[in-house]
């Protein structure tokens, strides 16, 4: 069974702090994704990566960056956290080919005060 592990379940940070959200997958998947989940807005793609050191912007990349130094690890970085980045963040992975299922982690609920 694919396991996608997000390092923190809950995080509380202050405005202006640099925030790191970590994600690790154990199934050798090529693709990794960061989504943001907000009530009434569904799941929105922030960034994705199809290979080590490769990254592509999703639909809402502003205010975020990512890092993928190893195949199994994908980090989301908030350079200067703002209150409008308070949200649930979901990491996912999938095989490279076609419409392979997304395998999600259980999410990190980030609150920026």
């Amino acid at each position: 069974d694919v396991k996608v592990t997000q390092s923190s379940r809950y995080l509380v940070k202050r405005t202006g702090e640099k925030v790191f959200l970590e994600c690790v997958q154990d199934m050798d998947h090529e693709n990794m994704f960061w989504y943001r989940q907000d009530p009434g807005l569904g799941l929105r793609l922030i960034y994705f990566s199809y290979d080590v050191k490769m990254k592509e912007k999703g639909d809402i990349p502003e205010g975020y960056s990512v890092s993928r130094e190893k195949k199994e690890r994908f980090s989301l970085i908030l350079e200067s956290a703002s209150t409008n980045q308070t949200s649930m963040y979901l990491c996912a992975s999938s095989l490279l080919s076609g419409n392979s299922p997304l395998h999600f982690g259980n999410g990190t609920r980030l609150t920026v005060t």
Partner: protein
Amino acid sequence: QQQVKQSPQSLIVQKGGISIINCAYENTAFDYFPWYQQFPGKGPALLIAIRPDVSEKKEGRFTISFNKSAKQFSLHIMDSQPGDSATYFCAASLPGFGNEKLTFGTGTRLTIIP
């Protein structure tokens, strides 16, 4: 941005009843339509998916109905059970792309009452 409109936002169904969640899309180029199920405290997981060359796909109590001319697809849960209480997301993807072009609906919170 490509849109997938999902309704209703929330749904309460009696145990044993049929739950129906609807999605409508605009881009006729979409060629893959998955549904994801999310339990509280968990990430979404793929439930069932359909391509537009078929009008219906059934897996156990879960059925996707697809109406290409109306640009709509729906999830039907037969004999709904309390364990089906979850948030459901429809999605759509363009041909030639993977999950990086997957557009999600806004979600439906389903509650099954005894």
